[in-house]
């Protein structure tokens, strides 16, 4: 299917964009953008299993961008592209860890009896627990800021700014200042939230 689509695109004269110079763009990043890149790496790598940290995720994302195994699309800012690569690397890492743990349970003759099918399709309990802990910790961080808590809840439910304002009776100005407070607090803390 993909191959025929590709043939059709080529046949219709659609050319693939040439690889963009990721190395040059990386070297040109400002100090603020480098700090941004680190913040994004810390954000996506929070709580990853197996002791994998932000530097591992950022390093792998940069390598894949540099060698072209992840293509930087035209019109997408470099940092947004790298953020997406890191997000998908972290997702893949969670899935891999999940497969490993399901495989280990399956090999256990007692625990694994009949568990393979259910476990492979059910939500990953380790990831669900880590996420619940992270959400609890973020909520605790903003326990004294009800407006920020409303925004966090709304964003977690996939709501837009307008929907959050409508639901909680916030003005656009209230929303913006609470959102900025929340962002600054998270960045000041190095995006490291914990239950302790």
């Amino acid at each position, binding site marked *: 299917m993909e191959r025929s689509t590709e043939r059709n695109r080529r046949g219709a004269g659609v050319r693939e964009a040439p690889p963009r110079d990721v190395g040059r763009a990386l070297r040109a990043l400002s100090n*603020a953008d480098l700090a941004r890149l680190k913040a*994004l790496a810390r*954000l996506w790598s929070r709580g990853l299993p197996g002791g994998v940290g932000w530097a591992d995720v950022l390093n792998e994302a940069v390598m894949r961008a540099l060698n072209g195994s992840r293509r930087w699309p035209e019109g997408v800012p470099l940092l947004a592209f790298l953020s997406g690569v890191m997000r998908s690397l972290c997702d893949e890492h969670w899935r891999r860890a999940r497969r490993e743990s399901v495989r280990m349970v399956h090999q256990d003759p007692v625990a694994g009896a009949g568990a393979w099918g259910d476990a492979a399709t059910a939500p990953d309990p380790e990831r669900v627990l880590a996420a619940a802990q992270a959400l609890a910790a973020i909520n605790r961080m903003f326990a004294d800021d009800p407006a920020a808590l409303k925004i966090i809840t709304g964003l977690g439910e996939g709501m837009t700014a307008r929907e959050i304002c409508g639901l909680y009776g916030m003005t656009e100005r209230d929303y913006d200042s609470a959102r900025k407070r929340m962002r600054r607090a998270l960045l000041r803390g190095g995006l490291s939230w914990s239950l302790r």
Partner: protein
Amino acid sequence: MEPTVKNWRPDDELRRLLDALSAEILAAPEEEMLQAGSTTGRTLAVAVRDIRELIATANEGQEETDPGLPLTEARRRRETCLRQH
């Protein structure tokens, strides 16, 4: 209707929140990022140098990249590479 606590998926909720926060980081003003870079226990200069070194290491190791390599193995390989320098 009963609250849908039993259907709560914190992983999905956190994913949506992180998507929104990543957009916030991408849109944050420069001075805010510079401040954040220097308030997490290290000076901005050190933090920036670390990232530049990390990018340089990635640049050197790019030809060895296997797109299917687990992150744990990629980390081991990176540490080996750093020890060699």
